[in-house]
């Protein structure tokens, strides 16, 4: 029952969306299903928060390796949640001065704005920026021209890396117009719009064709075929 009912709801939702796509008269059904989905997505935020608390509180109470990070996660989560939900430090809206919580919680200078501007924003930007260092290190350690495929991959990577900067234009600008296509910036465009597009389309269509028979046989996971 625990498994059957959710599966039936999922199947019904999928069926309604497919029917609504192909039969204009049933378009409204699809919209209703989509609205249910949006409501569920909003509830998922609450579930996500609960799950985060459950996992990290357990890790902290068990003194599992890295439990200190879990404590920081829980504290950061609860602080942001209470500041945002409680609209702490929010000024009244100028149109409704009598209502103390009527202002915008993202207003410049508000505690929530402060958390976003000086904690969330620099932390997430730092995490992303660190990729540059790890990519450089990984490229040095792992990218070897061991066989023909690796040489092709390496050559393509060099063309794209140069073609996405002014170096591409500078290095091959001397080529005559008859060899226009061999200029690095044009080779980059050719690689992206011909080879990449063809490969991606093949993968997309292949996956779509592959998923249908797998699901049709009643397999639960089309990726692992389990």
């Amino acid at each position, binding site marked *: 029952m625990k498994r059957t009912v959710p599966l039936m709801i999922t199947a019904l939702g999928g069926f309604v969306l497919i029917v609504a*796509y192909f039969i204009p008269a049933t*378009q409204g059904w*699809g*919209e209703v299903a*989509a*609205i249910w*989905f*949006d409501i569920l*997505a*909003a509830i*998922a*935020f609450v579930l996500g928060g609960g799950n985060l608390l459950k996992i990290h509180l357990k890790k902290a109470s068990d003194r599992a390796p890295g439990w200190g990070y879990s404590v920081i996660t829980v504290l950061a989560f609860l602080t942001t949640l209470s500041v945002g939900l409680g609209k702490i430090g929010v000024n009244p809206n100028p149109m409704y001065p009598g209502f103390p919580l009527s202002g*915008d919680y*993202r207003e410049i200078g508000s505690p929530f704005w402060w958390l*976003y501007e000086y904690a*969330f*924003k*620099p932390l*997430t*930007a730092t*995490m*992303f*920026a660190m990729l*540059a*260092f790890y*990519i*450089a*290190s990984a*490229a*040095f*350690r792992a*990218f*070897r*021209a061991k066989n023909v495929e690796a040489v092709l991959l*390496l050559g393509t*990577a*060099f063309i794209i*890396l*140069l073609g*996405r*900067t*002014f*170096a591409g*234009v500078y290095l091959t600008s001397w080529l005559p117009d008859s060899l226009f296509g061999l200029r690095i*910036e044009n080779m980059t*465009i050719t690689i*992206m*719009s011909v080879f*990449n*597009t063809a490969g*991606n*389309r093949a993968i*997309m269509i292949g996956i779509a064709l592959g998923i249908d028979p797998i699901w049709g046989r009643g397999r639960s996971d089309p990726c692992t075929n389990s």
Partner: protein
Amino acid sequence: MYEFLKNLDKRWIFLMMFLAVSVPIYIIGKTGKTFPEVPTLLAEATFQAIEELKEGDPILLSFDYDPASEGELAPMATAFVKHSCEKRLKIYFMALWPVGPQMIDDVIARVIRSDFPEMVYGVDYVNIGFKPGNEGVIKVIVTDLRELYTTDDKGTPIAQIPMMEGIHSVQDFKLVVNVSAGYAGTKEWVQYAVTPFPDKIKLVAGCTGVQAPLLYPYIPQQLPGLLGAIKGAAEYEKLVIDKYGGTNPDPKYLEAKRRMGPQLVAHILIIILVVLANVIYYIEKKREART
């Protein structure tokens, strides 16, 4: 030297990457000089899609990114908004990502409030904000925007916002512009908005570098214009500034071009590292064969 390179500590690589990025930032910041850009056809098509619109046409800007990719996407978001303001379009902002509204706030403060103060909120531009549901949101608003968006981001009822008159669904916009860092983003806009209504919804987009290859299959029918990463942003920025920037454009409208400097040196560093690593690999292989 050979032994040093063979066992190169990753901290040296980190230091080199730090210098490869920070030195160009410093030099470009000091001199203000940038590398020239030649717009590609995709950047031209994106520019033309907005350029073809008439004054007062409604344009929907969906900012689906967060601070992690702000460095890559904020310059193109700035250029999109400046272009729309210069064309005197009616701008409608929305977001599929929870921190999208903050990205919208930033761009409104940076472009509209500072350079187009005559534009009035609710009349010339509006922020209808974030709704959870990813592609579910797109699926609903392509046929009925007011089903989900009953108020704007500030809580003002949609019915009280003058520029919302006549806007009932995404099909009422002359153009949809999506700035995307992943899921939900451009792919979902293509699949759930453009594909079911190919004659009514036109989409152009700007995306991160890792996303761009996955979006090429939709070009040109479902996605006539695409700006890939900071390079695409720099090309589009050039087109906007050449036409609307005047003789001395504000540096905030040249951010993408400025960021091409660090990108150039970082890319060259990676190429040098890969070549170096392969030279060491072949020398080692030869030595092994001899012994």
